[in-house]
């Protein structure tokens, strides 16, 4: 009986791969069981569902990942699990480890909770993600464009956004009639 109870718990830890990615992540995986951990090119990487996105970061901050490092959005245009990936990099000074968290966001509803309540440093990065790729971070205190003018239309780093061109008049060129 006791074995039957403990075995599923161990398999849960194994499937998330948190302990093998880094020992410090085991407690996080217990708090947010849906997060899947892996090691990519030597870096611990976590993939989390949108519903558990905020909960994972709250757990990570409690677990010693106190330093916010980076947030960016990648557009994978025709991908099944969601068009956008929001990629967050965190640092833990005490564990000396960098963790990358990925969260897929569907293209027809590109919204995600803002991290700026947990890490104030996410503020500018989320504004950049909104500005250049059009992912809306809900509960962001000041979600305005940051790089482009306020009246810019579109989100230029999206893959379906045309690059655009400036017409150049070649005056006096030899016309072929």
């Amino acid at each position, binding site marked *: 009986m006791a074995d039957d109870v403990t075995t599923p718990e161990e398999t849960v830890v194994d499937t998330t791969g948190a302990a093998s990615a880094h020992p410090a992540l085991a407690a996080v995986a217990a708090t947010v069981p849906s997060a899947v951990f892996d090691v*990519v*090119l030597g*870096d611990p990487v976590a993939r989390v569902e949108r519903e558990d996105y905020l909960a994972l970061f709250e757990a990570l901050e409690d677990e010693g990942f*106190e*330093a*916010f*490092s*980076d947030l*960016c959005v*990648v*557009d994978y245009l025709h991908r099944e699990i969601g068009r956008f990936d929001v*990629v967050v*990099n965190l*640092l833990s*000074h005490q564990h*000396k480890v*960098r963790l*990358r968290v990925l969260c897929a966001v569907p293209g027809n509803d590109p919204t995600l909770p803002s991290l*700026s*309540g947990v*890490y*104030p*440093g996410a*503020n*500018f*990065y989320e504004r950049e993600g909104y500005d*250049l790729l059009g992912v809306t971070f809900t509960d962001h*205190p*000041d979600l*305005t*464009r*940051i*790089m*482009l*003018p*306020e*009246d810019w239309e579109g989100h*230029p*780093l999206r893959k379906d956004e045309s*690059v655009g061109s400036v017409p150049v008049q070649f005056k006096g060129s030899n016309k072929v009639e």
Partner: protein
Amino acid sequence: MTDPSDVAHGEAPDNGAEAPVTAPETGAEERRRLHDVWMSGTEAPTRSGHFTSEAGQEMLEEEEGAVLAQQRGTLVSDDYLDDIESDDDERQILNMGPQHPSTHGVLRLQLELIGERIIRAKPIIGYLHTGMEKTAETLTYMQGSTNVTRMDYLSPFFNELCFSLATERLLGVDVPPRADAIRVLMTELNRVSSHLVWIATQGMDIGALSMMIYGFRDREPILDFFERTTGLRMNHNYIRPGGVAADLPDGWRDDVVSIIDLVTKGVGEYEGILNANPIFIERTQSVGVITPEECDAYGVTGPIARASGVDWDLRKAFPYSGIDQYEFKVPLGRHGDTFDRYIVRMEEIKQSLGIVAQVMDSMPDGDWRTGDRKVTPPPRARIDQSMEALIHHFKLFTGGFGVPAGEVYQAVESPRGELGMYLVSDGGTRPYRLHVRGPSFANTQALPVMLTDSLIADVVATLASVDPVLGDVDR
């Protein structure tokens, strides 16, 4: 009778019934007139003006909640002295920049003042945005380093190094020891030259004009050495995926020895001028304070975080290019103010010169780029002899090399902090996405924490000590 704006438009709206003004109806923009161009005899403007506006990004007279906390810098630790008593006559919102000599580029700061005291601050950026991340998606991996080197233009070698390391990790390519040593040599010299620009501008901004002359004077031999090695004083495109572009020039040891001697002597001079200078101390100590907790939460890295006591240097934590085989120490401050940033950076210059001296003594022989012909073009002499060499050369310079699909985040310790690049490859010869985590971007974001509750005169001193490079902020 006639409206002045109609007169300005000339004869076109002569009927006066309804002028085709297409200005937006929001309050702030009503004051501005569109620059319509009217040709005589036409009914409508031939070219219509176009507003660009930062209205939504600007600071409002009244903000609330988290926005106010952001602008006051009280999100992490509330050390704000909330004893403001004023009437509206004393409050004003002041725009500093984007064209202001001490904003180090095109940074714009909005400051709310009561008298001389700063109540709120908001950095507004984007004036130098040129879409370099988008450009990177259209350039091959060989061309990519020409693009990234222009981002942080005071430390171009670090941009190239970061991009090259990220590409090499995806490729699984190791570079020869000599390439690693040359990379460390160039980047550490670059750290010295970048810090010399910082000490020059920091001194100039708070009135020590001789520092400006000294800093640029001592930076010059370093740039001369860069020019001899790479062909250019800035934007070198020297560190490339697979190694470096060329070997060090003849007589490079003499150049490096003279640089070390000169800068060591120069640093002594700067410390003689500044360390006990009562004006410098008054203007920097306890100015622009940021705590270690705030540094972590805002993503502030580099000398600013180390001046607050955050013991974190990527060269020690995640060593790259074999920098862990050289001995150096990480200087730390305790107060997190402008003076500690000065102390930390001066010490970093000395430590970097120590690394440079060690690299010079232990420079290994051998090739300076990988022998993998899929990444590195063949030597010129081989092209005349070998058909395969010619094919490799042709393929590399027409199509570039493919990089296995995957994603990687690579970070290096630039003079301003953690410079990271997130590189996504879909297997092609161009990056699918390149995101650059510029250290200045995060450091600029934390400016309200350092600025609020201080005096307007301290803005210039604090901003100079943050040392933002706007090419890195806006990209």
